[in-house]
């Protein structure tokens, strides 16, 4: 048999190998997935596996399972990526290996409209009949200049303010949602209330100044581009300047935590901040991050009302393997009743107009959010939404302003310096 030395060497090698291989182990991909449970390696050669690329949590897992149950020959595999990498990856994939279904957020819709011929015209699959079901301006996100329908709308993101009623109570502020909404008819009032909160508790009111920026910039009918999309107005639009000034003014009440970071998620639980901008789809996210705080979060109106944040189209790339099946799924999952179903399950607010007079939607209360009637809160918000043109360089411009706000928050630049450097950087990049 082996000598003692040899055994020692072998076991040492085995131990190191185990250590090394555990480091090499791949992580589970972030896909939500196939509620079917089995691992995709089906011996059923008739089964079609559709690839669905998305970002964030679209809340579609149950609906996908429902569809798969009703259509046993179809399986849908989701791949979830971060917001920007998802869209960038999708763009570069359009000429090679594309998914069958993808989500495109409204901020990126102009960019993809420029290459809309790389998507299937869903009118070929009967989508034109669906046009009347949706808000006009949401439907328009998925229609290109030649009238091809390359995407069907998912949800809309009318905005409200989610606040921690328990922390408000500690700070001596009212907690009833109507009273809270009455506290801040304007943004200046909002910032003042924030100041009161900070002096009373010593904690931050907002997660970052980006909070104010994101809300205010979406509250008009023009953002970085003119309403007809023909010119850039990021440096002349008074709404943008106002958004900037308000964001800068909010610096003392903000915690300087980046959105979507681990600290931000933790902050939903640990009281690092007391309010969040809540488009409808944010509610599901908060519930996921802070399950133990049911009842502590509540919903009030947004200062100066209005404004849409988010929403997507589902598209079928032209090079998809199963375009007909993909189109079929999209029409099914985005139909009026499915959107309503999704709202009740996850909070994604429908872009289908019929939903807004549906008594079930209007009467819907969220248990987590202290029984807030979120159905009617958001339905009211929807009526004030103005179509807002978002152009191809949307994200580029937004990122520059965001970085500038970050520099102000760090104290690296004065607000004027930061604003000027942002404008200069955008001019260089975009024109």
């Amino acid at each position, binding site marked *: 048999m082996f000598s003692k030395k040899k055994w020692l060497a072998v076991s040492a090698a085995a131990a190191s190998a185990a250590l090394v291989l555990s480091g090499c182990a791949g992580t589970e991909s972030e896909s939500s997935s196939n509620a079917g449970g089995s691992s995709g390696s089906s011996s059923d050669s008739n089964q079609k596996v559709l690839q669905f690329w998305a970002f964030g949590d679209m809340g579609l897992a149950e609906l996908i399972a429902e569809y798969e149950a009703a259509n046993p020959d179809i399986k849908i595999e989701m791949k979830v990526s971060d917001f920007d990498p998802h869209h*960038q990856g999708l763009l570069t994939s*359009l000429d090679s290996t594309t998914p069958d279904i993808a989500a495109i957020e409204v901020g990126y819709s102009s960019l993809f409209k420029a290459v809309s011929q790389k998507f299937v015209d869903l009118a070929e699959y009967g989508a034109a009949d669906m046009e009347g079901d949706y808000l006009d301006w949401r439907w328009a996100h998925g229609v290109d200049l030649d009238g091809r329908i390359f995407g069907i709308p998912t949800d809309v993101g009318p905005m409200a303010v989610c606040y921690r009623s328990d922390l408000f109570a500690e700070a001596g502020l009212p907690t009833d949602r109507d009273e809270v909404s009455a506290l801040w008819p304007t943004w200046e009032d909002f910032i003042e209330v924030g100041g009161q909160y900070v002096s009373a508790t010593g904690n931050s009111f907002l997660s970052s100044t980006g909070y104010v920026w994101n809300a205010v910039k979406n509250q008009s009918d023009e953002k970085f581009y003119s309403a007809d999309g023909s010119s850039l107005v990021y440096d002349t639009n008074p709404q943008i300047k106002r958004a900037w000034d308000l964001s800068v003014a909010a610096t003392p009440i903000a915690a300087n935590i980046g959105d979507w970071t*681990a600290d931000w998620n933790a902050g939903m639980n640990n009281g690092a901040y007391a309010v969040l901008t809540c488009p409808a789809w944010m509610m599901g996210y908060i519930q996921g991050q802070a399950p133990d705080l049911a009842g502590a979060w509540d919903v009030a109106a947004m200062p100066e009302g209005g404004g849409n944040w988010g929403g997507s189209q589902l598209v079928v790339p032209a090079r998809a393997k199963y375009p007909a099946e993909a189109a079929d799924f999209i029409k099914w999952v985005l139909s009026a009743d499915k959107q309503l179903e999704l709202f009740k399950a996850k909070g994604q607010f429908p872009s289908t107009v019929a939903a807004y007079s549906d008594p079930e939607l209007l009467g819907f209360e969220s248990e987590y959010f202290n029984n807030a009637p979120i159905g009617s809160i958001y339905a009211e918000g929807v009526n004030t939404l103005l179509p807002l043109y978002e152009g191809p360089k949307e994200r580029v411009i937004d990122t520059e302003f965001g970085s500038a706000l970050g520099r102000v928050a760090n104290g690296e630049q004065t607000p004027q310096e930061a604003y000027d450097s942002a404008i200069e950087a955008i001019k260089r990049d975009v024109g």
Partner: protein
Amino acid sequence: MANKSRLKRAEERTGYLYTSPFFLVFAVFGLFPIIYTVWVAFHQWDPFGEPTWIGLDNFVALADDPRLWIAIRNTFSIWILSTVPQLVLALFLAWMLSHSRIRGNTFWRSLILVPNITSVVAVAVVFGQLFGRDYGMVNWLLTVFGFSPIDWVNGTLSSHILISIMVIWRWTGYNALIYLAAMQAVPEELYEAAEVDGASKFRQFISITIPQIRPTLIFTVIVSTIGGLQIFAEPLILDGQGYGGGVSRQFSTVTLFMFEQGFSRFEYGYASAIAIVLATIVVAFSIFNFLVVRRIQKA
């Protein structure tokens, strides 16, 4: 002989045959992309159109672009902070491993290589958390010892230090093993003779070991220059919000800048121009370092 013998010609043919797979693969996956990149650099090209010839415009724009110069500054700063300590530490570790009587030598030699085989992204995520502003362990330790916490990611020098720590952590063991192998080849008699002459351990190290492993030193300096000037994954992960390398581009490196222009701004021509600039910098600086290290006394 006027003609090569048939045997010799056959040998030559076999030689070419055996090495051809490498060259074929290199031609397709190495040489062709390089040439293509140079071609793209002279065009303006995005996903929405065809490539348009614009000559040197990309390079002219680059010369004027403050983002490039910030990236170059950051890249060199990170390079110095990471490469110099790393190689010195590696030399020290190799010396310890070869000349001390520690038990379980093989174990220690395997252990120092483990950081090298970890996932770069995972390491960046973990170090990012360790050095987090509010909840990071490093800041907690600092406060325990009475210092005030540092905003590692948002400062320029502090972010460079953070990235350098990750790079040092990863590559020291690798270089140490290379030095170790070289040191093992140094004849014992040299040390014994020096011992007899009364040289201290340190003197032996400087006058015997270093000159004897000179080729290895040159090798590691060149390789770490090439690698260290192309740091990409760590800055990418540290800036969770995009490819800018921080809100003031404080840790944007040239590779990251190239990636940002190519894959989030979709300016393929501009990114290719940056790639060429980077390659030029790397080659020039490697040659420079080679000339410097070559001045070490020959053995």
